[in-house]
């Protein structure tokens, strides 16, 4: 009984949760990050025997942007991951 009451006081004095990003930004961010990620992926995909530095300079941003893009895509369609 006392454990719940002390958690209740801790709960009432806490700050309400704020999301890291506003929900309205989810679809916009999803489309923009996915587009940018696919741009880099395409740039790597159509390249012919460039240096490793070029390849990595395209695949790493592509992977990171597409990773974020997938998360935002899931969130904007209602699959709250």
């Amino acid at each position: 009984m006392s454990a719940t009451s002390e958690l209740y006081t801790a709960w009432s004095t806490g700050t309400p949760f704020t999301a890291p990003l506003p929900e309205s930004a989810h679809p916009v961010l999803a489309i923009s990050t996915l587009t940018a990620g696919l741009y880099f992926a395409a740039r790597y995909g159509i390249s012919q025997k460039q240096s490793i530095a070029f390849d990595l300079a395209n695949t790493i941003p592509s992977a990171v942007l597409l990773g974020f893009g997938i998360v935002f895509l899931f969130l904007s369609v209602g699959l709250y991951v």
Partner: protein
Amino acid sequence: MRLTATTSTLVATIIAALSLTSSVHAEEFWSEKDVSIVPQTFKITNLLRTLDLSKPIIREITSAAVQNIHTDQNQTDYYFPVDQAYSDNLSFITAENRKTKEVLEVTKDDEFYDAQFQYYRIKLATPLPPGEKVQITVRTSLTNIIRAFPTHVGQAEKQKFIFFGNPFALTAYPATKQKTTVITPNNVLEVHEHPEEVDVVVKNNQVILGPYNDVNSLEHGIFEVQYEMTGAVPHIRSLRREIEVSQWGNNLAVEEHYNFVNRGAELKGQFSRIDYQRNPMGIREGNGVLGFQTKIPKLARDIYYRDEIGNISTSAIAHQPDHIQLMLKPRFPLFGGWNTTWYIGYNTPLDGYLRKVTGTDKYILKVPAIAPMPDTTYEDVEIRVVLPEGAKNVKAVLPYEVDEIEYSTTKTYMDSAGRSTVTILASNLIEDHAQDLFIEYEFSQTSYLTKPLAAATMLMAIYATSIVFSRLDFKIGGSTLKK
């Protein structure tokens, strides 16, 4: 059949023995008196007990004026006994000071063990000086204790129930005066009591047992009330409530799976759809369940109501000032003994439930343990709370005792390490148990990056394979010179 000489003398002795015992005082009829094992520091000067039988869940309200009879010590612990035979039926117990309406702490006592009685310790708000009196009200809710009698009724027939109880309020201390009032929804049909000397007065829908003077502690007898009650006895055999917290999406997703049965009098014969639709009075007086009502959060969205077949369209919502009233109708009316299953779910914003302790990484989640459904008993309840990936040091706290709290990990969409999960198993709950469940956990800001980086790592693995493989030479034979 002709009585022989020996049989007639046997019958005569039995009648003589019965008449001898029936002339003895009520308390001494029971040769073994139960002795109260708790310290006898109180005396009950007046006790009024009300047994409310108007709903399928029996509510017993015991108001006692107790006096401290210890010579020189202040008392803080008042003991309330409950028969062990009813331990499975006792669902909820609270106590309050009758004058100040202050809620008193009630705990199940494990210090005094008695094979027949379970004691509950009620802690008084302020220690009671010797000779002083205080008035305590104890409210208990008993489930699954009334029986339909007869067990089968027709479709539009009214059902009758039978209740067996103790004419004396079970107390750990002797009572100078006590009275019990039994309230039934309609007129009382029949009352039987044992021992027969117990005073019983029947008035319309009330049975008044007493007042009894100088009742010993732990005094008990049996009395039986038969009464009519329309309406179903709703009972949820199993409820699985899944709550998923998503901090990325600022969302709390709730999904509840129900298995419901109507425990009223069973249907005699076949269900006749013609009689059911032609006779609206029959619907009102019969015991069919026509719908369920429950409350869901005010900001709930994407509400769905489905079962194994698919969506159930017979549902409606009504927006109330502080919640949404959800009215669900099953695919068919549920008569006694009939059951059905369904599941509902919705999404709701997380900021009403989750709070962060300022300055730390600690978060506290406050959710209702179950959604309240009126007059319904829950047999097996499983509450599963799935916390975001990266939650550590998880602790769950409930305001009442439950069977088990388990901590584990589940893996769902885009999980690499798995999400911390709290599983709570409880049984024999009623509407009063829809109180807040608190879960606290630690979640650092960097844990937000786990999901995107997990996806990025998988993609990078594919790209790396591609980079390596594009530089390898798989030609068979030596390299040919270009011409």
